């Protein structure tokens, strides 16, 4: 066997191995996605889907404030959630990695993400009960006299943000922690030797080194948060609808698949924009 044919047979084998995964992805992800992109350029007339190419759906999106508000609401909520979650999760991951004794770290980390294993739907529902006027939080605060009127924290944007932040703090703590413990203590020692105080060490050494991990986590948060339907639907009280809610309205109430497709493409573009912004920190690499 010559090297050329050997290489050829090797290559054929490799193709055979990678083919099932590629075919699956193409058949059930790429084709549906392209089909949807095409559909977004059709329109629904009465009971039929008109297969005439046009940009009506997109034009409608930009001209109807109810739809456009969906996007701005989504972006505002998602950005708030992402920033808040990072700000809350970073110190937690830091304390677990630095202050908690080594042998308890694993336990502390598992505890921090344990509620992840309640059902997602149930978790949102639990927050709904917690945050309402007759709920545990308001009743407790009223009971100890900290407030005299119940707080308006249920069925609005605040509730949605709280529900989201709860979930993503767990996720981000995990990502950031795994980043922090990979840092060699030498970095810190070197910084200290050079006369940096704790804050300077953190700001100039630790933070930049963990930034890629934080950004990966933040990007993941962004993607999952902006595409989520359950949390805003259960907690938001149908005030300030987000894009996924509007998409579900299109399919659920009027079977307007073309419009739903157009809105999905817009959602997709928002995620792509976020990706481009974070791209230089994101990479998936082989050990």
């Amino acid at each position, binding site marked *: 066997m010559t090297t050329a044919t050997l290489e050829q047979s090797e290559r054929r084998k490799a193709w055979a191995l990678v083919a099932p995964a590629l075919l699956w992805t193409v058949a059930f992800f790429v084709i549906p996605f392209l089909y949807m992109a095409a559909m977004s350029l059709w329109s629904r007339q009465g*009971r039929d889907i008109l297969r005439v190419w046009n940009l009506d759906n997109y034009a409608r999106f930009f001209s109807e*404030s109810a739809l456009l508000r969906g996007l701005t609401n989504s972006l505002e909520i998602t950005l708030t959630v992402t920033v808040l979650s990072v700000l809350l999760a970073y110190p937690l991951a830091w304390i677990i990695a630095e202050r908690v004794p080594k042998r308890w770290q694993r336990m502390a980390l598992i505890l921090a993400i344990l509620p992840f294993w309640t059902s997602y739907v149930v978790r949102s529902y639990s927050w709904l009960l917690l945050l309402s006027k007759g709920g545990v939080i308001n009743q407790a605060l009223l009971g100890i006299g900290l407030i005299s009127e119940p707080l308006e924290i249920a069925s609005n944007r605040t509730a949605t943000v709280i529900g989201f932040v709860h979930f993503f703090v767990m996720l981000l703590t995990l990502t950031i922690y795994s980043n922090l413990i990979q840092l060699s203590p030498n970095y810190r020692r070197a910084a200290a030797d050079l006369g940096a105080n704790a804050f300077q060490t953190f700001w100039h050494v630790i933070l930049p080194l963990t930034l890629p991990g934080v950004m990966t986590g933040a990007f993941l948060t962004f993607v999952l948060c902006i595409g989520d339907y359950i949390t805003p639907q259960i907690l938001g*009280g149908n005030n300030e609808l987000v894009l996924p809610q*509007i998409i579900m309205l299109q399919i659920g*109430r*009027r079977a307007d698949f073309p419009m739903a497709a157009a809105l999905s493409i817009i959602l997709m573009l928002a995620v792509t924009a976020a990706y481009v912004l974070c791209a230089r920190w994101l990479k998936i690499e082989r050990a």
Partner: protein
Amino acid sequence: MNRSHSRAASCRLFSSVAAFTLAALAAGQAAAADELNALVWCDHTDPALIEPFEKANDVKVNLKEYEGTGAGLSILEQSQPGDWDVMVVDAVDVHRVIDMGLLGEMPADALPTADLFPELRMEENNTKDGKTYAVTEKFGYNTISFDKTKVDPKDMEDLSVIWSDKYKGRIALYDYYLPMIGLVQLGLGKKTADLSDADMPAIEEKLSAMKTVSKQVSDVVSSQTALATGEVDILVGGGEWITASLAKDKPDLDWIVPKQGAMRWAQSIGVMKDSKKPDLALKFVQYILSPEGQARLATSSCYWGMPTNQKAGEHLADEQKKALRWDDQPAYLKNTQLYPIPTAELDQKMQDAWTNMMQQ
């Protein structure tokens, strides 16, 4: 681990997964002696209602629930002919389904029409060209529910309370545009049957005012939650269907038909034209309309509502009848109107108005 050992282990793992999968699939198949596919509202998914029929006829009833006619039609559009045997739909929308050519004719003498409340026979909705396509099975009201210890019940007698400032931030709006727009129309002193394009500007203005004074727009469960937890004190669009099942734990909840009137909802059930088991499907409809079936449907776990068959009263406890306000029905029937029946364009307009209101 030696090689044969590990191969045996992986073989075992694989075969047990395969066996499990096959067993589960077989179980799914074996259970299906005969199956009936029903597209229904959530009150039909109560096992207490369905199981007696399944046992009596040795059949499995597959249920898919939906909310709002738009959603139901959307599911039908995505299905093949013959996928569905039975459908429950808003009585006022029966003609939409007939016009799509989806509902089949039922023999009128197979149905207990004579036993129904006369106001609920609704021939103009359930029949076309003298043929019966559906029959009304349950009804109730979309009106004002409230916590009588927290608001002045006198205020609830006037529909204009739903856009007044008095209870600002303590009102929830039920998230279904048709009855809600109907209520606004009544509040404006007009009839729902006359609702046309020309009424929309005034309605939109009121919707906007309602949104301003409301706390939330919510589906069934969040409405219930909001009332039960004191998040809101008033639910516009509510009625016995939301308060009856909470009566035991929340006795302070009440509902009223204001002086301008309120919306009456009614749901109909029919057999699909392309059903492969029309006889079984008709049997199911007959069961639902029977006095026993009616009593179970009236007190179903999802929501309560009045049965249309007057004979169901014999199968309901006094307490249940009281929660349903059995004896007050004549007065309510007189002062309530059916949902508006919009054309496709008006329907689109109404939906847009509703979405705009939510997003305001």
